[in-house]
């Protein structure tokens, strides 16, 4: 199976594309925010420029292998970094699930509260359904991460389950929320 080359998605305002090395300082700065560490289990802590460089290299590799599709969210072409959004944990289109991916995202602290996330999520979910041919998108968050839930609901995710002790958080096992989005529900 061939994998799509990195693409640029835009709604005329936000521009989403595979993270590039020039973003390393901005990613490093954004990932000092304790609020991100509160909810993101996989984020190295402390977070260094080297971690950001590793992350950027991994994004290109994952696009190449079709493992994950990660986008930097920027304010216009070449604009400042607002956040990151990805489709990961992809299930093959030929699998009985009919093709499924999970969305993951974060927004830099100064950029929150301006509706960046729903707009970016909408672009990425549309890409997943229309270009990757997925039949279902999933969203998971630690119980209590209300801003993540709000963003997912804004684009049409339907809350489906509370999964006890399903997620790991800094070595602790925590309860998770799970939502699903079908192609016709995206808004």
């Amino acid at each position, binding site marked *: 199976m061939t994998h799509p080359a990195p693409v640029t998605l835009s709604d005329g305002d936000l521009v989403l594309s595979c993270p590039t090395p020039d973003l390393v300082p901005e990613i490093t700065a954004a990932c000092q925010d304790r609020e991100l560490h509160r909810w993101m289990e996989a984020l190295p802590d402390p977070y260094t420029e080297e971690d950001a460089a590793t992350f950027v290299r991994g994004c290109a590799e994952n696009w190449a292998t079709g493992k994950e599709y990660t986008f930097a969210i920027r304010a216009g072409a070449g604009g400042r970094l607002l956040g990151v959004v990805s489709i990961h944990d992809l299930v093959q289109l030929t699998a*009985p699930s009919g093709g499924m991916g999970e969305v993951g995202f974060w927004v830099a602290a100064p950029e929150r509260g301006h509706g960046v996330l729903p707009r970016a999520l909408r672009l990425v979910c549309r890409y997943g359904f229309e270009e990757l041919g997925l*039949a*279902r998108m999933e969203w998971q968050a630690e119980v209590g991460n209300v801003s993540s839930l709000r963003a997912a609901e804004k684009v049409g995710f339907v809350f489906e389950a509370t999964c006890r*002790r399903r997620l790991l958080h800094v070595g602790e096992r925590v309860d998770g929320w799970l939502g699903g989005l079908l192609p016709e529900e995206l808004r």
Partner: protein
Amino acid sequence: MSQPGQAAMAPPPETAPVLESDGLRLRPWQLDDAAGVLEIADDDVSRRFSPSLRTVFTLVEAEAWIEMRRQRGANWAVVDPATGELLGRVGLHHFDLDDRCAEIGYGLKATARGAGVARRAVQTAVDYGFGELGLARISLEHALDNAASCGVARATGFVPEGVRRSAISRGDGTYDDAHLHARLASDPLVLPTTRPVVAPTEVVAGAYQLCIPNPELDAESVAEACADPMISLYNAGPVTSEDAYAWCRGRADWSDQTHASWLVKDTAGLLLGTVSIFQINDRSLGGQVGYWVAAPARGRGVGTAALTAATRFAFGALGLVRLELYHAIDNEASCRLASAAGFAFEGTHRQSYRYGDGLLRDEHSHARLATD
């Protein structure tokens, strides 16, 4: 999850049950353990930190110590299951049935220390206390100077709460400060770091047996069972005998440690169904469980027995902490079976799996935790 003030706890048992877990056996005390008890007692660390063993110097005194433990239910001898060698002691005591509290105590003989025996024994007794007895809180105290005991407490999720000053007699008129820890049933699960490598193992499932598939022997009957309309819809499996041969071979090969799969048979060796723990994840220590029951064997509790036995194996031998179970929402028999085997309903995943008729269906997710 236990809800404080809701369910009552079970009183401690009259005789401690045998618990097998993590390479250890916890069993009731026997009078002929006296020599082993003397060995535990006759050690500087035990005399310093275990008040009850401080006065045990003879076989008669050791027998009296054992008799006391036999009279209280939840006290165990910790033994090596391979050799029967007595390694140490663990017990729950000071039960408060109204508040659903108890205290845990433990100790090892000198040669058994440093190998994680205390940690595993405490974890096993804690699982029993929360799981079987319905305790809400287990406290743990050790002399402030006893760093090894503090390490065991922390490694098993007992959170330090404070110091009770001069609370433990040293037996010479002076006292040790006690470091108090406690663990709640509602605390986050302690994360085990490793999972044992498991070879294909047959398991008793009530009146039935979970067997390792044998392609030569089983392929024909597997293909026959999978021709059933219910199974081909909800658990589409091998149709031809060649496919069934390969299916049996795959399910008998546990070498990649991502699944543990069995055929369910009766005592005469007749195929009744299958059960499998799959998608085993070494990081999250989670897995999924799937099963089907052959048409002629339905309505006899085969599914419940098989699912219960496989679940016990998953939480015991495989070291998993969470098992998920998915079924199409129109498969009500499967939903009943999941609930009967203790898998709590968690949600409805819409259009999440393409079934044997080619249609995406909504599924229920159920899950059971090792601590449920």
